[in-house]
């Protein structure tokens, strides 16, 4: 997952480390033994204790202050890296500022590895952005049934497929599921979710194409109450945040079915617009969690960072392929660990 971003971060990390290292070397030109000391402080020869002490005081215990100048080049390279990985411009700016703040002015003992300092700063910045994960089964267990989940998003991000995948996932976790075919607009959408549900053995509540989606989803909730179903998954038609009438339709759906969770679905390959529309959806109908689809298309994962940073909501799942089991719960800690090569 996100191996592309990982590689890029790895090289950025090396660059940052090298810059700081170079700055350190420049400030200590009179001490040729330094690299050796850096590698293994314990190996300072015991034959001449006075020299060893000197070295220890001069180099190992000496603090070095990282200046902005030392890392400027490396940071601007990191900026390009993030942009190339589809992290949106404003989010990139925020991340860079964060990392700079984490590094500049930091006192660092020479003995401490440059790498760990850089990694720590990157890691904290990324974790801050990605926030906490979201444990859906635990959420369902701790809430009154039926738990109603509404899926929103723009056209073609994969809402219907995601609904089917999450249905399959929850069924495997032992919950009973009903799907509301709330996309009554797009031709073939009801057939699409119908086929998925049939394959998965999940009940679908559907009306005809062109019907009021609020009514369909209301009926779905009623069905779930009557049949003591655990989870309602409500599919909706894709809509652009710029279409006021469609957004107010969504608003009506929310009023009518009173969802416990609103899940915003977007694709991992989306660029800067991901930020704009996520913010807009969050503003008009709200969003409690995010699903990022098509993550298998893209090894960069920038959209995950962008969206999470913009609306500050947890990522629920990543869609990683065409099969029903191609969905994985998102755990920020693991992902960041993986991105930074587990070196932290």
């Amino acid at each position: 997952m996100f191996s592309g971003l990982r590689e890029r971060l790895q090289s950025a990390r090396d660059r940052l480390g090298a810059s700081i290292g170079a700055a350190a070397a420049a400030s200590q030109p009179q001490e040729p033994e330094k690299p050796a000391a850096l590698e293994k402080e314990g190996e300072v020869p015991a034959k001449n204790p006075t020299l060893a002490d000197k070295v220890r005081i001069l180099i190992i215990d000496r603090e070095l202050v990282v200046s902005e100048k030392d890392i400027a080049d490396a940071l601007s390279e990191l900026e390009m890296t993030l942009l190339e990985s589809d992290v949106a411009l404003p989010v990139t700016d925020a991340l860079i500022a964060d990392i700079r703040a984490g590094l500049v002015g930091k006192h660092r003992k020479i003995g401490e590895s440059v790498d760990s300092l850089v990694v720590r700063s990157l890691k904290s910045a990324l974790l801050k952005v990605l926030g906490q994960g979201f444990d859906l089964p635990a959420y369902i267990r701790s809430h009154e049934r039926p738990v109603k989940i509404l899926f929103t998003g723009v056209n073609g991000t994969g809402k219907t497929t995601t609904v089917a995948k999450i249905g399959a996932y929850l069924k495997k976790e032992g919950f009973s599921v009903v799907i509301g075919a709330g996309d009554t607009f797009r031709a073939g959408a009801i057939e699409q979710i119908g086929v998925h549900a049939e394959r998965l053995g999940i009940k679908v509540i559907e009306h005809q194409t062109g019907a009021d989606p609020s009514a369909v989803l209301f009926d779905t909730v009623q069905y779930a109450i009557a049949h003591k179903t655990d989870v309602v998954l409500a599919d909706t038609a894709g809509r652009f945040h710029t279409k006021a009438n469609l957004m107010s339709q969504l608003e009506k759906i929310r009023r009518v079915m009173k969802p416990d969770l609103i899940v915003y679905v977007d694709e991992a390959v989306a660029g800067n617009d991901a930020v704009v529309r996520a913010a807009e959806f969050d503003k008009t109908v709200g969003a409690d969690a995010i699903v990022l689809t098509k993550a298998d298309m893209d090894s960069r994962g920038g959209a995950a960072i962008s969206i999470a940073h913009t609306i500050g909501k947890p990522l629920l799942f990543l869609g990683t392929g065409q099969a029903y089991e191609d969905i994985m719960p998102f755990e920020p800690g693991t992902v960041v660990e993986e991105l930074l090569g587990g070196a932290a």
Partner: protein
Amino acid sequence: MMDSLSGSLKDALKKLAGKAVVDRAAVDELVKNLQRALLSADVNVKLVMDLSKAIRTRSLDEELPKNTNVREHVLRIVYQELVRLVYASADLKLEPQVILMAGLQGSGKTTTTAKIARYFQKKGMKVGVICADTFRPGAYDQLSTLCAKINVPCFGNPKVTDARQIVREGLVAVKDQEVIIVDTQGRHALEPDLIQEIIDLNALTKASHRWLVIDAALGQQASEQAKRFHEAIGIDGVIITKMDGTAKGGGALSAVAETKSGIVFIGAGETIEDLERFDANGFISRLLGMGDLQALVEKVQEAQMADEVDMEAMMKGHFTLRDMYKQLEALNKMGPLKQIMSMLPMGNMQLPEGVYDVTSTKMARYRILMDSMSPKELDDPSLINSSRMQRIARGAGGTPEEVRELLKYYKMMHKTLKGLRGSGGGKFNMQRLMKRFSGMQ
């Protein structure tokens, strides 16, 4: 966000405006702002870097053409470089052809297929569609429903799982049609089986066009995906979809650069009619979040157009409806009045707000009204009484109120021009003003 970006871009331009020579620092700032605008429009990072380098060198090295100021000079370079980026020709001929649609999942291939079918149908071609998406449930239902609405034959079979077989049968089934469009399943470049499938479909259909459908929101990934698709089947046209959202479509630029092709269509809306031919100027304006760039670039020509208006007569306070007609005609080619005024180096001259309040649709109406006036009336508007008004209105398919409104606008323009002469203080100033008005500085 975008607003502030285009704002800083404009600020950077403004800094160039007053300069007599091209200022390195100002150009640098402009380029930096331009980079940010393009990056946040999802244009490929490498493309942005190449582009800004070219703009920088050209701005600093090229000699300032006569009759232009620094700002116009730099802007023209920016515009030209951008056009070079998007404007490879993507020819669309009305002749029998087979079109193969390709693209990522959810980019809008099926909807676009129906839209293109409609486009050719409206041009009088016989169109047939083959649904080769054997994977996504409901794909055939979707396409056949859309095609049924416009009475286009659609071949498909949801029970068959082999796209090659469907296409083979489909080509026979719709062989009487002139334009055959093959919709395919969404796929991405990292799926070797599916890439092989589309290579086979391309060979099977002997497609005359292979169009790549790109979501306007697609980010940096566009470049890589387009490259792989191009390697597989040789993309010769790009279609940008979902331009009705806020996405800027910069990803499509990367696709164009990778495939060395042009943008054929732009999809902007959910109904079957919402398909437009690509317009480079509008696209670039949107990319940068700025107004009509082309108008700025063609300012020199504009000045010549303004010359058609009889400046001499106008200076003497002789301003007839005929002059106004010419003016409106010229304005019509250039865009809204206010924008033009803001482009011309008029300094701090203030025109009454009412002058700007004429929208382009109104201007078009005014011209129609004036078309139904007699030459005498055009030369001497005071002739127009209520019975003439009735006649003019009837001739133009409008109401007398409209004619009255037009006359009111004329009077206001007249008064404004007279006022200019008055406040200008003497003929010399007026002449200078008019010269400036025509952009010769």
